[in-house]
């Protein structure tokens, strides 16, 4: 009845004096506050009853309150607020129109219902459905008023996640700076220097997170398109994912999972540079190799998990690089992120996963579930979390491995056998080589990288090989088994895997 009155009034008030609109808006806002107050009082009353009463009747009453009355009152309050906002918007529009054309009635429809909250534990597909169910105005409202709903919600449009996460950067910075100041004040008054309260460690973490926001903001301010697809300050170290290009529209998308000691503060900028170069190289190769010239590429640096660190973590089975515990935790985050790429897009992308070092273990574990990934390139891997390439949910022949000379990690074979010995995996080179095609006479010359940390060096054989897989032309890669003396030692014992 109340809502019917409001709708009727709104209709009649179109074209009314702006002071009348503003007065009615204020009245509706006051009503909304009163309903909210009633809800609060009732909530306290139920809580008091719970303190001194037990039994099935109380349970029934509590259920009625929580499942029916309370949500109804909350909804009524929100509806009144929405109507008030509509009247204010109408008033503002009318003021503009009056100054332009004498006060004709604007025809832009105003949102009547507030956006529904996202599904509590929705899959990327559920999230995509929810996001698409909202009107454009409701989506804008969520980005403006509830950016935390969607910033890290896999399945939601990446363009909108980017907008939400950029807004959250400011919110997070303010919150962290306040927290830093509080900890600094506490520590200044603490004779133990925080050793007994752990405030000193907490302060270090907060400072590191503020520095990580500096780094992210610097990247986002650089020329060229970037998207902030993930921002999470809820762990010991910051987590983030930054894309070069547009993940929502690019024909080829590559997601890079780095390994041990990777973090937003110290290494994200370096990885971002390398992913920018892979993006450029893949795009160039795509243009040269395809008759269609419009193929576009986006690359993502994904630091969405707490990678293993040096120091005492080495001895902690739950955090050590010699254990797959952290990789499993990372894979649990990576899988929905990858699924979200398919769910958020209108058209399927050619999706490639790049996994380095411990990140290859994380990637290998993730690929044992459905992810939508088409191709994967592992490089410098201590093991893929499996001994059998068939465990990866990929079409045969779409898992590639690169191992450089003098890379001891590539021969460890501690988190699955050394991938150099894995049957069914495709190999690609990291060596210097001049390749001459015997049929066409084509010559290609590539530079070698050695060791564990140079696979992404620009113009190297390994970088070129990754870029052609990302570009969807893997037949152009340079082959090499990657086997050296270390691989003799890492040969798995037959019958043990």
């Amino acid at each position, binding site marked *: 009845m109340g809502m019917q009155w409001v709708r009727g009034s709104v209709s009649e008030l179109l074209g009314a004096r702006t002071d009348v609109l503003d007065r009615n808006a204020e009245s509706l806002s006051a009503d909304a506050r009163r309903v909210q107050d009633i809800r609060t009082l009732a909530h306290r009353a139920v809580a008091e009853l719970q303190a001194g009463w037990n039994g099935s009747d109380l349970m029934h009453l509590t259920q009625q309150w929580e499942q029916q009355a309370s949500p109804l009152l909350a909804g009524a309050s929100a509806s009144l607020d929405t109507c008030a906002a509509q009247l204010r918007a109408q008033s503002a529009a009318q003021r503009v129109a009056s100054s332009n054309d004498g006060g004709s009635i604007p025809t832009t429809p105003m949102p009547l219902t507030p956006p529904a909250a996202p599904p509590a534990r929705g899959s990327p597909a559920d999230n995509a459905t929810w996001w698409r169910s909202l009107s454009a105005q409701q989506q804008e409202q969520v980005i403006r008023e509830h950016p935390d709903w969607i910033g890290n919600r896999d399945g939601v449009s990446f363009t909108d996640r980017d907008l939400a996460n950029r807004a959250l950067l400011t919110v997070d910075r303010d919150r962290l700076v306040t927290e*830093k100041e509080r900890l600094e004040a506490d520590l200044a008054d603490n004779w133990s220097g925080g050793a007994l309260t752990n405030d000193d460690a907490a302060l270090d973490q*907060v*400072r590191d997170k*503020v*520095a990580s926001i*500096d*780094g992210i903001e*610097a*990247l986002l301010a*650089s*020329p*060229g*398109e970037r998207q902030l697809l993930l921002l999470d300050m809820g762990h010991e170290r910051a987590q983030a994912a930054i894309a*070069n*290009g547009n993940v929502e529209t690019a024909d080829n998308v590559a997601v890079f999972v780095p390994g041990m000691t990777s973090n937003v503060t*110290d*290494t994200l*900028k*370096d990885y*971002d*540079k*390398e992913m*920018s*170069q892979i*993006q*450029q190289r893949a*795009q*160039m190769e795509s*243009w*040269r*190799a*395809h*008759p269609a*010239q419009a193929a*576009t590429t986006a690359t993502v640096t994904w630091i969405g998990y707490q990678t293993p660190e*040096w120091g005492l973590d*080495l001895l902690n089975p739950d955090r050590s*690089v*010699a254990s797959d515990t952290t990789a499993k935790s990372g894979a649990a985050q990576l899988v929905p992120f990858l699924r979200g790429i398919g769910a958020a897009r209108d058209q399927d992308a050619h999706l490639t996963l790049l996994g380095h070092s411990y990140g290859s273990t994380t990637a290998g574990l993730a690929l044992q579930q459905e992810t939508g990934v088409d191709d994967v390139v592992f490089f410098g891997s201590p093991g893929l979390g499996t001994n059998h390439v068939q465990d990866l949910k990929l079409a045969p022949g779409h898992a590639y491995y690169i191992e450089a000379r003098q890379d*001891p*990690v590539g021969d*460890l*074979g*501690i988190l699955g056998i050394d991938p150099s010995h894995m049957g069914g995996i495709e190999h690609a080179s990291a060596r210097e080589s001049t390749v001459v*095609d015997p049929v*066409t*006479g*084509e*010559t*290609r*010359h*590539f530079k070698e990288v050695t*060791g*564990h940390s140079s696979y992404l060096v*620009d*113009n190297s054989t390994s970088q070129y090989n990754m870029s052609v897989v990302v570009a969807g032309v893997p037949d152009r890669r340079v082959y090499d088994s990657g086997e050296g003396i270390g691989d003799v030692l*890492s040969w798995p*014992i037959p*019958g*043990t895997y």
Partner: protein
Amino acid sequence: MAHSGNVLMSTVFRVTRASRVSMVRVTRAAIGIIALVAIAGCGSTERENDTMKDAFDGLMKRPNLTVVEADYQAMFESIRERLTAEVGIAEWVPDAEPIHGTSCGGKISNLDGGAMRLYNAGVSPGNLPDAKWDQAVAIVAEVAKQHGFGAPEVFINGPSDHEVLFHDTYYGQVLFGTGYNTILGGGTGCHLTEEAHRRGTYLPPHRY
């Protein structure tokens, strides 16, 4: 009974085999971690600062990024015009994202004022015929040389499929190739922004 015995033997065998595998893995892990520690060494904030300060001083001797960007744009424009006019390739189609900025990477990723640029300088639809490839490379080399780049380095060379790279003394590069389409791009080395260059003094990363 025989069945139970087989199960028991099988279990014992599995445990033994698992133990052996576990020992092998732990040993490998230990060796690997020691090797990693040896190659990684230990870092410190002071050392990082020294590295970045040295890099800053070195970059002060290079032209600033604004100057370099203008130089690259002029070079690409000249290359595109001459290839179209003299070799007769199709008009260039500009990229949707012609310029992409990055950090200098590696140990100077967080260097205040240090930056690089990547360029997708355009696509000319269609293959540049083999008969005209050498002429086209000579034109690109001539223009690139005027902007400080050296001789072309052949990256890929085959029928209807070519790519060459040119480098300058600042580790910048020009990339020119053809396949189904003809491409032009490249990237600068690491340079200081105009503001950092004008300031002239190294600023350590802000510590909170």
